[in-house]
């Protein structure tokens, strides 16, 4: 019989004050209360987040190991976070060497499901299909879904997509709005002057890159690529020779203080080691053996300032390898509005220069009319700005009030908000993209064409190039048989290269006739290192032979010209564009790295920004709510301070805490503590993963590391 065992009367169950993950958020409200959805409440809860973070000091350490050895025991870097607490203790953190993590093996591991990563994956599977072999490809993505962390203008040049998926139109890619008009304005406070548009967007489309990437994700899955959103690659795994063999995903379920929660899950190691072995044909057999050697391929396609990519660049000295300069960046802040039908002109493209930025700050805005009454508007501010009081977010809010822009947005509503940094370094800053075990593709290397303001097509192409190359060359080399001929083959290949024959033309069919399998085994031994050597040079060479390089080369001088000021910049750009047409004999260099460009606060005065009016301009919490960003609150802060004292000792007194201004998500706040002293509070939960802090912090004290997978913004139309 069912019976009532006991009825214990209790006062209302206590609540945890600071929480805003779904579970914790509801604990505070009454038991049966349903979730409220109004904007006001949501921004309240976000505000609660920012206040609450100061109540729970995040004394967390990370076991982020750069060179994890195979059996998991590795020297762990322990970092201290800043809630100002000077607990200088390096605590071990969920990183018992004994806690062996599971490992999964693939032929190719790609970090990041963006345009570059997905293009690489799709291309690889296409090649497999053509040659009748099977390679396992795995893509890990830190966003909760494919496309969730993708944000871009975007006026899309379909050049690379035409090569990758020529049937994109038939297959209903979300590319439908052709550019219908192309305007270029110079803004002053009250007026807009029309200038001749330097862009040629005739055959381009206005799209939402997030939507396109989602579509590419579904295409990739059709090809058999395994995509795992919600998993953040946090660690690079290397073997004893120092080659990269894969990545490790984040441990999930770690509490703020570093202890394991009840749903703790150790991260997984994804290794690029070939397992596949298909078919009985000797030829295929050779091919597979070939891949096994070059098969440990890990591609980093993390986007601009990718956390692991930066580590790789440092570890293998990839910038020094080709005497590249440092990378320079800009911060883009964007909103998508739904506007009045009468004001909507699908395909209209507007770019502006000038106001609200001053002569010394490079940047401009964009306004693109998408489909379905949606309009994308954003401001891009170069991060080498000098005034520490500048707030790119507030400048963007000001922009929307301009008399030429206000009428378009009036009576509209904001659908989404987001922000992301982008590269502006061009060809001068591209590092050597190949390292033992893989390559860096897309914006992580930095192929954005600054004057064109387009980086999607070059990112996609860079992804495609690498794989085509690896396969072509490995097959050629291995199938060519007997040991003695190994060096012969390499020379043959190099000869062909110097004749400028592109790898595409070194078709596999012609190599199959070399089939001479007995030599295979000996060949393997000889080719082990040989293969590595030839890969490295070849990818680089083919990249430089491709249209990516040609484009970037033509575009190389525009951005550095502006380092000399607005007028000189415009003048040099005009000369480049109309006179030299990209064939100029000189290559301008970049100025100081972005973080060194900030002047001290005393040489500037604070900027008074107007208050948001709630119709056109908004405060940060309201905007943040529109980005759908969230992280599980009970996890260690992913923004780490190398020196926890530096904010109060350097950032605040000398630069007046610029991070509290440039961060588009209000992650960094200086709040007074009991003694009245201001202390840095890090609201990591708000983070939009834009990486501005990693770039702009004057002493490079802030390190952006990847939080638990699945967190971060939720862009769907950006």
């Amino acid at each position, binding site marked *: 019989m069912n019976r009532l065992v006991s009825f214990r009367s209790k006062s209302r169950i206590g609540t945890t004050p600071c929480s805003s993950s779904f*579970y914790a958020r509801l604990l505070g409200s009454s038991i*049966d209360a349903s979730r409220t959805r109004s904007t006001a409440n949501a921004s309240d809860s976000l505000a609660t987040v920012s206040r609450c973070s100061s109540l729970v000091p995040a004394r967390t350490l990370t076991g982020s190991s750069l060179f994890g050895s195979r059996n998991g025991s590795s020297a762990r870097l322990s970092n201290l976070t800043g809630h100002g607490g000077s607990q200088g203790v390096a605590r071990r953190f969920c990183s018992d060497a004994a806690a062996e993590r599971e490992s*999964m093996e693939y032929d190719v591991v790609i970090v990041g499901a963006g345009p570059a990563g997905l293009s690489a994956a799709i291309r690889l599977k296409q090649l497999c299909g053509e040659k009748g072999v099977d390679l396992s490809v795995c893509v890990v993505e830190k966003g909760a879904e494919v496309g969730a962390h993708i944000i871009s203008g975007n006026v899309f040049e379909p050049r690379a997509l035409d090569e990758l998926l020529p049937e994109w139109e038939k297959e209903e890619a979300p590319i439908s709005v052709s550019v219908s008009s192309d305007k270029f304005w110079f803004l002053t406070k009250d007026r807009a002057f029309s200038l001749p548009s330097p862009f040629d967007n005739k055959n381009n489309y206005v799209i939402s890159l997030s939507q396109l990437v989602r579509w590419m994700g579904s295409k990739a899955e059709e090809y058999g690529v395994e995509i795992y959103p919600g998993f953040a690659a946090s660690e690079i795994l290397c073997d004893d020779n120092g080659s990269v063999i894969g990545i490790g995903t984040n441990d999930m379920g770690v509490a703020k203080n570093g202890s394991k929660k009840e749903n703790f899950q150790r991260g997984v190691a994804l290794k690029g080691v070939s397992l596949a072995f298909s078919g009985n044909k000797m030829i295929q057999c050779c091919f597979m053996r070939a891949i096994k050697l070059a098969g440990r391929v890990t591609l980093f396609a993390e986007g601009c300032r990718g956390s692991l990519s930066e580590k790789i660049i440092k570890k293998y000295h990839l910038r020094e390898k080709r005497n590249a300069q440092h990378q320079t960046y800009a911060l883009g802040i964007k909103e998508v509005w739904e506007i009045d039908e009468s004001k909507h002109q699908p395909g209209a493209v507007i770019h502006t220069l000038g106001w609200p930025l001053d002569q010394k700050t490079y940047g401009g805005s964009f306004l693109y009319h998408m489909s379905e009454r949606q309009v994308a508007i954003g401001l891009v501010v170069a991060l080498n700005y000098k005034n520490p009081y500048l707030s790119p977010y507030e400048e963007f809010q000001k922009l929307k009030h301009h008399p030429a822009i206000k009428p378009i947005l009036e009576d509209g509503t904001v659908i989404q908000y987001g922000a992301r940094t982008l590269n502006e370094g061009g060809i001068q800053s591209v590092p050597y993209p190949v390292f033992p075990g893989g390559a860096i593709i897309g914006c992580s290397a930095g192929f954005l064409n600054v004057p064109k303001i387009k980086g999607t097509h070059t990112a996609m192409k860079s992804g495609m190039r690498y794989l085509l190359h690896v396969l072509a060359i490995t097959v050629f080399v291995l199938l060519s048989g007997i040991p003695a001929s190994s060096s012969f083959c390499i020379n043959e290949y190099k000869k062909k290269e110097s004749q400028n024959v592109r790898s595409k033309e070194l078709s596999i069919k012609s190599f199959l006739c070399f089939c001479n399998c007995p030599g295979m085994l000996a060949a393997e031994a000889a080719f082990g290192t040989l293969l590595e050597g030839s890969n490295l040079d070849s990818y680089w060479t083919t990249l430089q032979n491709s249209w990516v390089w040609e484009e970037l080369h033509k575009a190389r001088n525009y951005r550095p010209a502006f380092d000399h000021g607005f007028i000189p910049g415009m003048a040099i750009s005009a000369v480049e564009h109309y006179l030299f047409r990209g064939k100029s004999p000189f290559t301008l260099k970049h100025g100081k790295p972005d973080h060194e460009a900030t002047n001290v606060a005393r040489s500037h005065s604070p900027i008074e920004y107007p208050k948001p009016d709630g119709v056109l301009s908004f405060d940060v919490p309201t905007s943040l709510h529109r980005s759908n960003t969230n992280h599980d609150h009970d996890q260690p802060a992913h923004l780490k301070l190398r020196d926890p004292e530096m904010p109060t000792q350097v950032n605040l007194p000398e630069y007046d805490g610029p991070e509290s201004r440039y961060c588009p998500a209000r992650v960094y706040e200086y709040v007074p503590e009991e003694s009245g002293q201001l202390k840095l509070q890090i609201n990591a939960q708000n983070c939009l993963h834009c990486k501005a802090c990693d770039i702009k912090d004057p002493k490079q004290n802030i390190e952006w590391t990847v939080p638990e997978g699945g967190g971060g913004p939720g862009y769907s139309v950006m």
Partner: protein
Amino acid sequence: MKIMVAVKRVIDYAVKIRVKADKSGVETQNVKMSMNPFCEIALEEALRIKEAGLASEVVAVTMGPKQSIDTLRTGLAMGADRGIHVEATGDLFPLAVAKLFKALVEIEKPGLIILGKQAIDNDCNQTGQMVAGLLGWPQGTFASKVVLDKEKQEVMVDREVDGGLETLCLNLPAVITTDLRLNQPRYATLPNIMKAKSKPVKKYTPEELNVATNSDLEVVEVTEPPKRKAGVLVSSVDELIDKLKNEAHVI
């Protein structure tokens, strides 16, 4: 003993909701969907019971359009053994869901049904109760603690009620709906996600189960809640009383 767990595909809790321009509903196109958080808790509880050796199998059930299968796969990745997808287009109100459940129970014959207390999109809080009613089974709703006794074929459920906590003892088979504090759901790990791809999912349609899903309810209009008005600063108590009396009409 088999445990059946209901999971629902809803708009993710962190997404900002927008009402459709024609006010017929909420914008679901291009919006992130995920498993209802209460359903995650329900599934986690079922998995714990199975891991304690008190159940043999956990079956995850979802009802909805074609894409609901993604949610089912997540459930399988968390550890459910089998999945059942009742494919139904159009709105499914709680009574229809309960009737479909009853039909499935007659096929599967589970010993325990666990559901989330409510779905975060409609906040109905009805399905679990209706299922118990249709089946004539005892129910323990808003469970914050569940303890199964296999020999006695009973389950002790701590319920979160307005006055505090109430502990009930239910005979099996029973229906339990879960509340927040029951457990912390586990993450689906990569290897499990891979394994989930090969776990069996059986499909049904309402017609096959002989259930009519038409409803007496019709959604007439969906509107946003009124925007919170700005407050007004008053300069004196008299002014306050005046406003309360004459403007707000509360005294």
